[in-house]
């Protein structure tokens, strides 16, 4: 029996014993309403209404059995079963998804994207690429997107807002209509997708009946929505009865398949095909080999493919595929490292993460805040050692106000001129709360004071079920990602990290990677990814990497394969030890991290490795690479040096 079937997500037993209602995730949107409305009162169903992107998250985190899922998300998750005959699509104009502008589309030099529907964003990209247009695309909240329209700037708008502005702008590209024009096929935006073995054939009938009832009530639904939204009733009625098509016939299926194929070819989505069968047992299920070779070729992988790699891929298969990706992304055979110093400016922290041996509560006698003298000495040492940046992080100390940081940053910049890789999202959010400022404002002020980039620490696992268990008081996944989104929009770069090996499952780890990948699609702001396993306290384990060095190497390799849009993957030798760090260079990493002077958060938990630049270069050479020093933007500061030969 393969390990993939071990996962207890099969609901089959629950269904037969009937002890749990079917967990259905619906979308609040008007056009979805006919599909779920009558399920609300059905005791066999537990219906939750969410925004479309949340449906994707909830379904992939197993908070639901079946969801009305945008098709881009369905491809990203992978191995879902499509329910027959129901969809939200259009053959021709959909009216609610359009690029609006004052000038014709080919004259636009930028387009604001309402990011609430990834499917529409992907479709927009494909349609632009088809016309050989490449305006700058940038994400914006819906209202701002509309407000941005002027001159050569257009906007992709979605939903009620798109209906609302019908006729307001001289140019309007209806995406579904344009798709038909291109492919001759209808477009499917969303459909019911079920987790493996979660929905029986009988239960599927519930949805068909609901659809019939819902469509019969289309007029009433239009009237109600008109009353709520202020949109004209007649327009809504024709929208529901004429524009949106709720069928999923052969033509629609062909349209869906074509969309997935085009998007995969463009590297925007993992390759997928719609299946009414249970995908894990389907004859069409791809072999592990085919997943690996597609990954090695740089194709995008779905969540389920990533999970299979992590569960079933062998050390060498994963290593060789990741090495191939590394080679394609970095053909010069250069591995970089940075000379910097991790300065923990305070160990006073109001949060008490279970895995953190570093912090001291407010008022504790061992609590400290580094003085300017101590900091100055450390910074001077960094400069003397040829260092170019410091990584400044600390606990969440309520006594340090934003002014303290601004002064500190200005002082560091003017006195030492070092790069400032400082304050993880957790600390930024803490500051925003403390000062009652927005995250945007906090980042803006710190940026102005000299902040260069944001370290990706504290990401742990970006799945809230896991975060709540290991770090209850920490920010949520959405908050963490939100800080990074804002930082990236402001032009700051950041790294992304992952700490696995606590209570997380392989699924959680892959979801974490996909969340990073999604944000990276949006902003392109992540420079590099690092992962490490949870480190036990000293004495409770035989060696660093307690979950096994194999797991580390496999995890890093899978990360390299999943994160097709992140340039660099770094070996975390500080946590794994220089030996495993070196081996990791053959498992997808192209960076050896930093020559660090201290790393309190990790070393308090018993891992202390010290190493100098010469030893790092020796290891890089020993792994068959040239070595170059870099800055925080991964630009080479030295000519790549080859090894002295020998072994």
């Amino acid at each position, binding site marked *: 029996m393969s*390990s993939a079937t*071990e996962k207890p997500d099969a609901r089959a037993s629950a269904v037969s014993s009937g002890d749990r209602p079917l967990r259905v995730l619906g979308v609040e949107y008007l056009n979805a309403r006919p599909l779920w409305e009558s399920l609300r009162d059905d005791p066999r169903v537990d219906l939750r209404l969410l925004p479309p992107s949340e449906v994707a998250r909830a379904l992939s985190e197993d908070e639901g059995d079946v969801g009305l899922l945008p098709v881009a998300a369905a491809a990203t998750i992978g191995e879902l079963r499509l329910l027959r005959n129901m969809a939200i699509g259009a053959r021709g104009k959909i009216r609610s998804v359009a690029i609006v502008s004052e000038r014709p589309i080919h004259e636009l030099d930028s387009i604001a994207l309402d990011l609430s529907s990834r499917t529409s964003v992907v479709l927009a990209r494909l349609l632009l690429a088809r016309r050989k247009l490449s305006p700058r695309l940038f994400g914006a909240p819906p209202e701002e997107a509309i407000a941005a329209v002027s001159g050569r700037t257009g906007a992709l708008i979605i939903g009620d807002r798109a209906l609302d502005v019908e006729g307001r702008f001289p140019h309007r590209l209806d995406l579904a209509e344009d798709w038909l024009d291109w492919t001759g096929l209808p477009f499917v935006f969303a459909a019911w997708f079920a987790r493996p073995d979660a929905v029986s054939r009988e239960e599927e009938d519930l949805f068909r009946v609901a659809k019939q009832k819902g469509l019969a009530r289309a007029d009433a639904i239009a009237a109600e929505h008109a009353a709520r939204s202020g949109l004209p009733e007649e327009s809504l009625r024709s929208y529901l009865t004429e524009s949106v098509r709720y069928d999923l016939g052969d033509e629609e299926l062909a349209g869906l398949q074509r969309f997935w194929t085009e998007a995969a070819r463009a590297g925007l989505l993992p390759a997928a095909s719609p299946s009414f069968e249970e995908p894990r047992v389907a004859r069409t299920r791809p072999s592990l080999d085919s997943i690996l070779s597609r990954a090695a070729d740089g194709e995008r992988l779905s969540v389920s493919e990533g999970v299979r790699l*992590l*569960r*079933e891929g062998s*050390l*060498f298969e994963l*290593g*060789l595929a990741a*090495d191939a990706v590394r080679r394609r992304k970095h053909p010069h055979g250069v591995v970089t490292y940075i000379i910097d110093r991790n300065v923990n400016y305070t160990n006073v922290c109001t949060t008490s993460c*279970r*895995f953190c*041996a570093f912090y001291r509560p407010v008022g504790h006698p061992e609590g400290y805040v580094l003085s300017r003298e101590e900091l100055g000495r450390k910074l001077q040492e960094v400069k003397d050692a040829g260092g170019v940046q410091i990584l400044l992080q600390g606990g969440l100390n309520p006594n340090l106000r934003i002014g303290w940081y601004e002064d500190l940053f200005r002082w560091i910049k003017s006195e030492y001129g070092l790069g400032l890789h400082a304050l993880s999202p957790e600390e930024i959010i803490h500051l925003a709360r403390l000062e009652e400022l927005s995250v945007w404002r906090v980042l803006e002020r710190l940026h102005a004071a000299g902040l260069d980039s944001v370290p990706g620490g504290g990401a742990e696992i970006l799945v809230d079920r896991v975060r709540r268990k*290991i770090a209850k008081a920490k920010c949520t996944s959405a908050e963490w990602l939100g800080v990074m989104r804002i930082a990236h929009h402001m032009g700051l770069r950041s790294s992304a990290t992952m700490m696995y*090996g*606590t*209570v997380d*499952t*392989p699924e959680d780890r892959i979801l974490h990677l996909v969340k990073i990948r999604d944000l990276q699609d949006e902003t392109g702001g992540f420079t590099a990814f690092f992962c490490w396993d*949870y480190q*036990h*306290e000293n004495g*409770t384990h*035989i*060696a*660093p*990497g*307690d*979950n*096994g*060095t*194999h*797991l580390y*190497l*496999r995890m890093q390799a899978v990360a390299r394969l999943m994160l097709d849009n992140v340039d660099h993957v770094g070996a975390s030798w500080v946590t*794994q*030890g*220089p*030996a*495993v760090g*070196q*081996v990791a260079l*053959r498992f997808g990493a192209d960076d050896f991290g930093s020559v660090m002077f201290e790393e309190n958060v990790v070393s308090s938990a018993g891992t202390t490795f010290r190493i100098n630049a010469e*030893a790092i270069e*020796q*290891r890089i050479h*020993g*792994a*068959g690479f040239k070595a170059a020093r870099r800055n925080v933007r991964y630009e080479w500061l030295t000519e790549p040096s080859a090894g002295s030969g020998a*072994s």
Partner: protein
Amino acid sequence: MLEAIREKVLRGERLGFEDGLALFNEPDVLAVGQLANQVREARHGDRTYFNRNLRIEVTNVCVASCLFCSFAKLEEHMPGAHTMTLEQAWKKFEEARAAGVAPTEVHIVNGLHPGLPFSYYEDLLRGFKRIDPTVHLKCFTAVEIHFFAQHYGMTHREVLERLRAAGLDSLPGGGAEIFDEDVRRRISPDKATASEYLEVHRIAHQMGMRSNVTMLYGHIETFAHRVDHLLRVRELQDETKGFQAFIPLAFHPDGNGMKKLPAPTAMDDLRTIAVSRLMLDNVDHIKAYWVSLTPDVAQIALRFGADDIDGTIVHETIYKAAGSRSPDGLSYDELVRLIREAGRTPVERDTLYNVVREHPKARAPEAAMKVRDRKRALEVVS
């Protein structure tokens, strides 16, 4: 080149000197490892051997001055020099037995002490057998045996016969270093030569004793010297079939005459294991000696051709003296977990590779540590 070698390996054809050299120079070390892993799995599947052993060094006083040795002291009165009384040595064994899992093997390696009577060694062995008649005594490297022969005026065979009569069961593989005469003269000028070392093993094998064989790499030798070393091992093995395991030993530079050299890196360790597996088609086992490699790298080596990870060890002072970061010993459970985490099947063996206990394999590497256990581990911390 690698393709041609791969085909040879898959056809079961023996590799030659040039092949060995090519494997050491192949840029794609993962491909070399994968090939070695294939050979390893064809021989042993997922089975990975370990034992319960006790390492004792009864004396570190040594008349020789090997360049790489951080362990030996020239004379008895020098600081750090120590020689155990027989009682002290036996006590180590009794303590280890009392501490829980009784060792099935006592492994003794010493300096070449000029001032002890031969009866000291005979009594030493008899004493261990008195404590536990079933314990396997794997004692004295070929270098020591050769020293005994010279020092006490006996032939190699006479030394071995007398020690066997006192309880000796097999020989450890230490002291092989690098067989190449030039290199050996530079790093170990005053102890058994390569042919003397091999001769001792030949005689032991002829007497029906098994032994292991090692290679000390990563100092001043070249890849060609390593391949040559492997070929000499293979040659004797063709003749006697007496070697059980080949054990590459990484040179550690602290506190010895070569401290300016960098230690070999993990990549070199893994490659050396892999090439050994590929070259030594007539040696059953390749050992990833965790003390030399660190448990982390030893674990990876289990996929690069190694099928044995040595044992619990308990006390090790030779590598410690040379700056190894490895712990003193690993508990039985830690070894089992180390192997399971690598997705392998832990098999406890005795010294002669008879199965003592086979542990269940982790179903997938991922499953090695259940979420439940991780939760428990977390609770320990918080």
